[in-house]
Every structure is written in C-alpha cells, then in structure tokens.
C-alpha cells in the first residue's frame, strides 16, 4: 500500500493545501437511509476506512495507510480524477461509527474573481469533517452520514462556484450517492 501512496503523496505536493481561513457560517449535511439488512452486515461493508471505493460509486480508488486507527489516512480518487485526502479522527467499533476530516484536495479549476485567482477544490468546501454511523433498527439498520464544513471561499461575497449553496449541493450529492450505493450493495 505504501508503494502506491508515496508517489501519490509526492504528486499531491503540487496541489495547494487547504486554506485555513473560512467563512463565518459553518454548514451541515445530515442524511440517513434505512437499509433492509442487519447492522452488522452494513457495518462490515464500510468498517474499513480504506474501503470506500468498494461501496461508493463516485470513488474510483481509495488507497489507505494506518488502518482503522485515529490518524489513519486514505486518498480518494473520484471518478472525475480529482483527489481528496482524508484522515480518521475517531473510530468507534462498538457503536459502529467513525469520524474523519478532509486534509487536502486537488484543485478542479482556477477562477478569476474580484481580481484574484481563486482555486476551486475537488469538493467545494473548507474545514470539512464528517461522521458515518450504522444503527440497528430491529433486523434492519439505519445509516447516518453527517458532515460539517464551510464554503470554499474564505472572503466576503463568494462567487457562485464557492458559495454555501454550491458547498451544500456537492456534499449532499456525495453523501446521498454513497448511502444509496451502500443500500443497494447491502440489500443484494
């Protein structure tokens, strides 16, 4: 796994790191889905942090290192070729839940806005963290995926590509796609 990660990490150095500043209002996405399969089965599908490419159709590959421990890392390559680096913040096997954050992203495009070149990241957000949890519902289960983040634009009056609505739409789409994919796989 390391062999794959090292060149990838080197390649990522070319990308700009995430801005540390952010807008004044953190946004949220909080979605859940009922899956007609036991919680243990569903958790079994998602429990390995590096396995997201196996169940999320938007993720092409997701090599990982550090396992399911705090500090574990994965790099998602999305279907469009963009990358998202994520780090495990909390792993709770007993409650079938883990939390992670985005630590870096590739840049999709640069737009000139208010006289400044603004880099639009793979997912147009900043300071993103999320938690995914599987809860038993009788013989079935409910998966909840919630995320907190800021818009990508750090100054006042954001351009459309980097405003709150765009951030919310992108996160919601990624989360819902993943939940629906997971349901399909788990109910097979």
């Amino acid at each position: 796994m390391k062999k794959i990660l090292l060149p990838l990490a080197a390649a990522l150095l070319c990308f700009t790191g995430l801005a540390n500043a952010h807008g004044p209002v953190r946004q949220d996405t909080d979605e859940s889905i009922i899956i007609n399969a036991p919680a243990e089965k569903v958790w079994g599908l998602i429990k390995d942090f590096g396995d997201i490419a196996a169940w999320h159709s938007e993720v092409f590959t997701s090599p990982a290192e550090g396992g399911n421990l705090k500090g574990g890392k994965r790099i998602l390559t999305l279907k469009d070729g963009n990358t998202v680096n994520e780090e495990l913040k909390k792993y709770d096997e007993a409650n079938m839940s883990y939390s992670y954050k985005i630590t870096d992203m590739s840049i999709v495009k640069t737009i000139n806005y208010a006289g400044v070149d603004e880099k639009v990241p793979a997912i147009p957000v900043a300071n993103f963290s999320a938690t995914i949890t599987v809860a038993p519902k009788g013989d079935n289960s409910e998966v909840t995926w919630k995320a907190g983040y800021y818009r990508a634009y750090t100054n006042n009056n954001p351009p459309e590509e980097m405003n709150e609505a765009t951030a919310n739409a992108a996160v919601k789409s990624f989360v819902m796609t993943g939940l629906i994919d997971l349901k399909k796989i788990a109910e097979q």
Partner: protein
Amino acid sequence: MLALNTRAAAIAIAALLSTPLAAAPFAYISNQLADSVSVIDLADNKVVNTIAVSGKPAGVAVSPNGDKVYISTPEAHGFAVIDARKQQLITTVKTSEGALGITVAPDGKRIYVADWFINTVSVLDADNLEIIKTITVGQSPSGLVVSPDNHWLYVANRLDNSVSQIDTHTLTVKKTTPVGQHPFGLAIDSRGEKVYAVNVESDNVTVLETPQMKAIATIKVGALPYAATLALNDSRLFVTNMDDGTVSVIDTESLTTIGLIEVGEKPEGIGTHLDDRHIYVANWFDKNVSLLDAKTLQVKETITTARGSRAFGQFIGK
C-alpha cells in the same frame, strides 16, 4: 359599572401578563443554522423560549444587568438586540460585513463587535446603538473580552496568531502579542490578571499575564479547540475541543490538564453559570447543550436546542 369593572379587570390581567419574567439566570444559545436563539432558564434547565433572529446568529453578549442580549448576525452584517425581560427581539443594528465576535463592557455602556472580514472592532454606545469608533486590529478578529475594571479590551486576531490589547479610554491598540495558531475564543479571570487564548490550529491555550501581555504558558488541549470559560473561583479552565467532542479541564494554578469530559459533537460556545460551578456547552452538530458540573466533572444534563448551536461569547446572564 359592570363595563368599567370588566375593563379594570382586563387592564389588571394585561398588566399581569406583561410583568417581566422572573429574573432567574438565563442562557441564550445562538442557533446559527436555525436562525434562532434558544433561551434556557437555568433554574430548571429548560428551554423557555425560542426567539427568531435572522442573519445566522453566532456571537452572544448579555448586558451586565441582564436586561439586554446582543447577538451578532454575520449575514445581516451587524447584531440583534433582545430585550431579555420580555424575551423579544427589539431592534437590529448594522455594523459591518462580517460581524462575529461581540461583547459588552462591564458597565453595560459599550458594545464591541469584531469584523471577521475587514479586521476591525466597532465600538458602539449601548444607549443609542451608534458607532463611536472603528478600530483596526489584526486579521480575522474573533473572540473579545473586556477586563473587569473596564480598562482593557482583548481581541483574538485569528489569522495573525495574536491577541491585541485595546485601551478602552483612548480606544487605541496598546499592544499586540503573539499567541498560538489561530486564536479564536478568549477567557479572562475575575481579577483581570490572566487572559486565556484558545488556539484552534495549534490545539493549545496560551496564557497571557495581563495587562502586561506577557505569554507565560502554553497548555496542550484536544483537537480544534474553540472557546474557554473559568469556574470555581478561577481555579479551573474549561476548553471545548471541536474535533474530539470533549471539554478539557485545566487547573489554572499548575497549568496542567486534570480532566477530559465527553460532550456532544462539535462543541463550540462554553459559559459558566452565575453560581460559578455549572458549565454550559453548545454542541453544534448535536443541536443541544451539555450541562457540566465543574466540581465532579460529570455531564449532568443535555438540553435540546436547535440546528447549529454556537453560543460564541458570554451567553449567560442574570
């Protein structure tokens, strides 16, 4: 006669209904994504009112006598004023583009509002709500506290990694001292001798000896700390760690961490009850508030609020 009596009775009832609510301490929790403020009666820890406040309410400051509550509204470019006795929004004030941090002077006469985008602190007269002066500080000013003697205003300059000290008599910056990375919340002790700056990006707290502004210690806390409050005669400092969903407990004499309390997800604003023992923590992601006992370090209760609870600032008042 009968008509008159009825009218008199009606007036008496009206008077009764408009009688100010009992002056129990209250906590005012800004729910940023719900555009509201939850009012918690601290006598029984129940939400007694939810006041609609548009503009993504974030910062909170309660006037010292408990009559007014000032709520910063970044998307409305200013702040809202709540009459605490009637628990009603009475007016809104425009200050600048990115109003976030807010505080009120210990004598209640001035309101200070930090602007996240244009790097200023607006000083307003609390009586007529007019801007007296706009002071340029460091980048992305956020947390604000005033010394108990009303002489100094401290400002956390988030992107400059510093804290500025403003002389409230001259309304000029006297000194700016480097702290950790991205200071956000500030806390000050009751004697005005120490200011604690919570550094979001370096996961620690800088202790400044004031008014000299000398950094005397740096204390490690959890991941992405946000704000802090003191309790038990300033002997303990409680710090919210956003990424860990915990509160770090620091002994202010030894300057060491003596406890860690699990609260909800993304804990942000934190404040101390007037009894100096009970601590309230707004859990942004869980839409609730955790009530902690500073003595036992246990969570005593969880109070449901609304989406995006932030309560940034001094949100508890008489």
